[in-house]
């Protein structure tokens, strides 16, 4: 509102100045107008006319009635002017009052209109500011309802157009990303299936050559085991794919997180030769979670950390579990000292089939499964951006079970 005060004050000052000038000069104008009617010369001539009519009536008695009528008319006029002269001050005062009332009314209407307009524009500016904030926050398809053709209206329409364009671009991008994900998935599926099938086929061909030969029985058994291994590999791929597609519902129970983490560190301390697990206990209330699924998430995160550190050729890997209470949930940070996550992948790290590993070394479903598990718990899994090198995954675990699973 503050920027509207200067022009408003200026308008009021101008209006008051105009009122003052009018007040100073209108009295003079009113006096002149009244003085014109009751000018002494006018009154003198009228009085003389009265005398003349009386003289004429004496001189010309035959037309006495006519002179009397004229006399009466002049007398009436003279008396009216005399009454006006008596009321001169009152007339001038009334005239002044009417002018001031008209001017004051006009001024009040003007000021009221300006204040209303200023408030309206202020509200519109606030709406525009809010819309720009929404736009900056990534909201799309904004509708401001501005129909005016002034500059604020044009800005509002530009914001709406921008938000619509952003929505369209976002849809297009998502479509392209989905397409890209599916292409990658198809490529990985094809490879994951083709590799064991090819291996199995080669083993079967070799086995076929050994069928009629007694001396090659051992080689035949070996080839048969090879076929079984390749089929197992295909089966495990199918299992991983199925576990993502048909993730079981979590069996929620109260869990002492500190005790569970201590137990996890004890059991899995030798599971990854290049990793050292560390638990920082905290005094926390019980959480509600499926113990097995939560363990699956932790195993997956440690597995990823181990592989990343192994890729760096290091053996001094370390994963730390630290937790704290925040309102109605517990935040569990899983921190490793690995190379961290590629910044270009950070936004998409939880999407299926997104991985840095070469084909044949993983489908890129692990983190997607982990996140799905935590979402099913009413919590979440995030990658915190602050730690580099290394990675921090934050698990949000609710104290109470979710209303719907």
């Amino acid at each position, binding site marked *: 509102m503050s920027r509207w005060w200067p022009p408003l004050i200026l308008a009021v000052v101008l209006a008051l100045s105009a009122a003052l000038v009018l007040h100073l000069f209108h009295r003079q104008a009113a006096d002149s107008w009244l003085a014109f009617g009751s000018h002494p010369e006018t009154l003198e001539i009228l009085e003389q006319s*009265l005398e003349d009519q*009386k003289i004429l009536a004496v001189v010309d008695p035959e037309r006495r009635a006519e002179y*009397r009528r004229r*006399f*009466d008319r002049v*007398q*009436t006029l*003279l*008396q*009216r002017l*005399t*009454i*006006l002269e*008596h*009321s001169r001050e*009152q*007339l001038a*005062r*009334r*005239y002044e009052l*009417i002018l001031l009332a008209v001017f004051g009314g006009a001024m009040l209407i003007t000021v009221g209109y300006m204040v209303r307009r200023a408030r309206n524009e202020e509200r519109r500016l606030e709406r525009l500011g809010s819309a720009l904030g929404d736009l900056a926050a990534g909201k799309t398809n904004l509708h401001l309802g501005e129909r005016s053709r002034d500059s604020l209206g044009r800005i509002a329409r530009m914001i709406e157009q921008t938000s619509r364009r952003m929505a369209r671009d976002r849809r297009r991008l998502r479509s392209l990303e989905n397409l890209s994900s599916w292409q990658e998935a198809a490529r990985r599926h094809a490879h994951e299936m083709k590799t064991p099938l090819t291996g199995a086929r080669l083993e079967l061909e070799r086995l076929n050559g050994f069928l009629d030969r007694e001396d090659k029985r051992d080689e035949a058994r070996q080839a048969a085991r090879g076929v079984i291994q390749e089929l197992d590999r295909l089966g495990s791929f199918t299992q991983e794919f199925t576990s993502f597609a048909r993730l079981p519902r979590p069996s929620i129970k109260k869990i002492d997180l500190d005790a569970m983490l201590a137990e996890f560190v004890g059991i899995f301390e030798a599971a990854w030769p290049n990793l050292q697990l560390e638990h920082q206990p905290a005094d926390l209330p019980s959480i509600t979670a499926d113990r097995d699924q939560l363990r699956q998430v932790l195993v997956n995160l440690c597995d990823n950390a181990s592989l990343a550190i192994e890729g760096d050729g290091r053996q001094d890997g370390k994963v730390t579990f630290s937790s704290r209470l925040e309102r109605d949930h517990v935040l569990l940070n899983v921190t490793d000292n690995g190379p961290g996550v590629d910044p270009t992948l950070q936004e998409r790290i939880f999407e299926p089939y997104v991985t840095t590993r070469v084909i044949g070394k993983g489908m890129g479903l692990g983190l997607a499964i982990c996140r799905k598990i935590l979402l099913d718990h009413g919590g979440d899994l995030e990658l915190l951006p602050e730690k580099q090198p290394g990675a921090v995954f934050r698990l949000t675990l609710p104290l109470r079970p979710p209303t719907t699973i």
Partner: protein
Amino acid sequence: MPARPFRPTPLAALWVLCFLGSFLWSSSAVAQPPPMLSSGESGLTLTSLPPILEQADIRKQLDTGLTTTFLIKVTGRDPSGRSLQGGARVQIRYELWDEIYQLASQDLAGNIHRGNFSSFAALKEHWQELSLEVIPLAAGTPPAQQSRLKVELDVIPFSRSEEQDTRRWFSESTERSGRSNAENARKVSEERSETLGEVFNLLMATSIRRRAIMDFHWQVPISRNSTAGAKKGRKGDP
């Protein structure tokens, strides 16, 4: 013993102020002797009106031919503390053609008196002999003797009918001039300006009002007068 220096006390200052105030308030009455109030059986009668007609302003006003009204108002309290109010009205008009003064008076008792006077001297004489029953008393009410009543006299320069006539004439005159000014304007704006003009004329015309051009006031003692009312109804010159 040394003389004590004079120190005005607040009470003394108040007395001085009251004296000065009453002196200034009654200054207009100093110029004119007060009328007489006498109590009779039927009520209080005002007589011996002061010779204010001789005053130059009033004489000039009478000669305009307008109806000059003399409004008399009497207020006070009787010995029992009861409020008393009364009054009378005298109208004088100089007929310019016939050169006669026409007088009409009416008091609260309902007495109406009319008279025509061919000279100012006769009018003046009659004025001073007027007897107006300003406060008629109900039967059995004791006369309010040994008290003073306030008598006010306002001189109003024209009558109500003359006021109405001038208002009408003023409105019509300004409307005519407004109409001629608006001849070249568009029809719609003309109608609008006429409506606004009528409102303006009405507001201006209603400011023409009867207001006293002079006023007199006295504190008049009540006297017992057996002849009160004897002069009532005396007629002026034909």
